[in-house]
């Protein structure tokens, strides 16, 4: 197999992978968390075949140690996961290696009112700007 290109994603949106893929009474919150997770996977899959997805989980940390928008201050819950693809250039627009990812995520709707602590004004992904609530880093090739 060719080299794989691995990316790490950090977000302030609750994308907990609950595994609840159908509506179950009394588990609507878990279904909505899974919906957000599925939204992310679908957006990533618009341009690439995900070879593996490694859900890391959630941590509470000072957002100023990360690269979120300046409208967020102090400690918040941050969800993190890794994924890998075979062709890294599919996400690039000219010299911005994440350009297409930002385009796809920009203003894509998400569900709020879950376990997130950082509240965007409106329920959308913002991959850039003062309300930036998701970003991507290519970590290494494997």
């Amino acid at each position, binding site marked *: 197999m060719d080299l794989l290109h691995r990316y790490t994603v950090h977000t302030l949106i609750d994308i907990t992978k609950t595994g609840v893929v159908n509506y179950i009474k009394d588990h609507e919150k878990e279904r909505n968390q899974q919906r957000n997770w599925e939204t992310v996977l679908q957006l990533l899959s618009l341009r690439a075949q995900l070879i593996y997805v490694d859900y890391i989980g959630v941590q509470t940390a000072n957002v100023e140690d990360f*690269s*979120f928008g300046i409208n967020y201050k102090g400690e918040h819950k941050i969800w993190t996961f890794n994924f890998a693809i075979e062709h890294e250039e599919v996400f690039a627009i000219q*010299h*911005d290696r994440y350009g297409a990812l930002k385009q796809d995520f920009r203003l894509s709707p998400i569900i709020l009112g879950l376990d997130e602590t950082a509240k965007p004004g409106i329920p959308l992904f913002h991959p850039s*700007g003062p309300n930036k609530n998701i970003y991507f*880093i290519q970590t290494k090739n494997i």
Partner: protein
Amino acid sequence: MALTRVNGGAAPVVTTGRSLAMYTVSLTNVHVSYDGVDSDFEKLVRAIETVGTVEVLGTPSSGAFRVAISGAAPEATAGSASLQGICNTAVSGTTVAAYTF
């Protein structure tokens, strides 16, 4: 939202009326291997995106690149000094100057 077509149709340009702030970001050797994973250029772009949406991103050359951002919080772009502080935190030694054309 009104859309405006300009340039006589030869090269159509559509604007959405958002204010752009343009800057020249300078850092020694920022153009060297700028397309590498987690390069200084990439770190600076990531930092700039915490204050505004990057609408236009220039190619790094001769130790500098230009960027146009929109939707920035006023306190972050009151002059280039605040943006420089953010960039300097990301990569020490970076200078930022407003660019006009």
